[in-house]
């Protein structure tokens, strides 16, 4: 064996040794943690996931994304197993969002109503994260960072910190008696705030009436009912054609997958992924007028990364939208490829 071959072999051994040691070390770190009871911070988060559904309240909050700020009023009620919510814009033109469990209607200026569709309930993974909002320990660290006051209420401050650069980190303030989220920051890897949600007043209430949850519609006004335009299915789309995501950040699973690896996209053109805290959606459609420009567009913490994909003679537009870093959206978009099922 020559001198350089020996060095090459030594380098290979070094790589293997590092990998082996890493696996052993991670194993030793992870396994004991699974054996212990949840930490106090985990309990706060588990409680928050439950409380944000079952606690009734009304309040006013400020929401900032980038340099744009909005104030809104929210009324949330959980009664007889039904969750209802009404969100009212307090700035600019009047707009409202009404939610009853998973059914969402947006009321827009100009007397328009738009129903939001969901693409999630189809698959068995839909239940994986439903009714919970828990970060995966392999990809986030959770820690209590002291106490604070928000909207006149005492709150505990919890940091949910991403362990890699494929997802964002969060700072959460939970009201001490109820555990309700009263303030949150979404932070990028540099610690810069991309999104701020902050109650200025909030009242925990059990007396919310049906009238408070009704949209502010003037009598006699006729509303037009619309759906979000359908994502265009390519004309040449073969029934046996699937789309495979070549790469997903670790910990993300497909919420409407129909197989265990969660990587095959059915021709419904819209798919959603989540790691329990962050989420993104993938849209695949025929290239046409009105497509987004290639590259990334950001709205606060939300990125839309559009990637033009040429396959055989056809052009497609793959767009990844979610609260993930640009690089994550880009990598997901650019590794999606078609495959024809045999």
């Amino acid at each position, binding site marked *: 064996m*020559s001198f350089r071959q020996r060095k*090459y072999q030594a380098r290979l051994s070094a790589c293997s040794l590092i990998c082996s040691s890493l696996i052993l070390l991670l194993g030793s770190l992870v396994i004991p943690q699974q054996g212990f009871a949840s930490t106090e911070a985990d309990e706060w988060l588990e409680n928050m996931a439950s409380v944000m559904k079952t606690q009734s309240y009304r309040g006013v909050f400020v929401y900032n994304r980038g340099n744009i700020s909005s104030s809104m009023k929210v009324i949330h009620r959980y009664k007889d197993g039904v969750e209802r919510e009404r969100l009212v814009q307090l700035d600019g033109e009047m707009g409202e969002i009404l939610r009853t469990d998973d059914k*969402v209607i947006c009321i827009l200026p100009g007397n328009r109503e738009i129903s*939001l569709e969901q693409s999630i309930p189809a698959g068995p993974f839909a239940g994986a994260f439903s009714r919970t909002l828990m970060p995966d320990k392999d990809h986030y660290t959770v820690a209590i960072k002291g106490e604070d006051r928000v909207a006149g209420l005492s709150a505990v401050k919890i940091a949910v910190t991403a362990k890699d650069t494929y997802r964002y980190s969060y700072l959460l303030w939970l009201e001490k008696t109820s555990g309700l989220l009263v303030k949150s920051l979404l932070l990028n890897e540099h610690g810069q705030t991309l999104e701020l949600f902050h109650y200025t007043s909030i009242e925990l209430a059990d007396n919310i009436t049906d009238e408070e949850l009704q949209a502010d519609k003037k009598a006699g006004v006729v509303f037009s009912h619309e759906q979000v335009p359908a994502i265009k299915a390519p004309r040449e789309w073969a029934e046996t054609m699937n789309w495979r995501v070549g790469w997903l950040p670790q910990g993300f699973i497909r919420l409407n997958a129909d197989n265990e690896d969660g990587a095959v996209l059915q021709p419904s053109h819209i798919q959603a992924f989540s790691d329990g805290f962050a989420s993104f959606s993938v849209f695949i459609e025929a290239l046409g007028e009105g497509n987004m420009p290639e590259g990334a567009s950001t709205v606060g913490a939300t990125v839309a990364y559009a990637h033009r994909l040429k396959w055989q003679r056809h052009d497609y537009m793959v767009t990844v939208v979610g609260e993930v870093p640009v690089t994550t959206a880009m990598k997901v978009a650019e590794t999606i490829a078609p495959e024809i099922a045999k």
Partner: protein
Amino acid sequence: MDDRLKESISALLDDEADELEIRRILNKSGDYELRDLWGRYNKVSDVLSSGRQAHDQFSPMDIDISSRISQAIDDEGELGLVEAEEEHGSLVESEKSQASFIRWAGVAAAFVLSVSLVFNPFSNDIVSEGEALIASVGFDGGEPLTDAGLSVLDEPSLAPDHARKLNEYMLRHAGNSVTGGRSGLMPLVRVASLSMTAY
């Protein structure tokens, strides 16, 4: 990737690759697997040179195995050095000239790989640099970067058709996020903050 190419990359790191090897590496410089291997070999080198890397909270490189690896390579090096001297002898003048070319070509190959790595968003360690470069490769107009290094083509700067399309995606994404009550109020807050007149 075949073992010969891997060995060539290892040799390039040691400034020992010949011209043919460098050309082969340069030809494959767009290969993700090759870039990944280059990155891993560099990490190993970093461990060997610095012992450990600082990291915000936990670094897998904190494992103190650097001394063992250093020792292993040094041992190999001492053995190999004798063989190398026996094999190659002294360089004559013409060989020196060729060696000079190879060294510069090697620098070029290393540069190409390093730049590729910076452009490569698949590498975890250089993600911030990768993000900083996205704007210049992702947009027609070369939008300015934010302080965070994130590429931005923010909503207000979009053409009306594109803003409408973005809102459409946002609505659909919010619809997906709302399902099952996983994300609480936030998906709807994001939708409510959109300029819906563009929709």
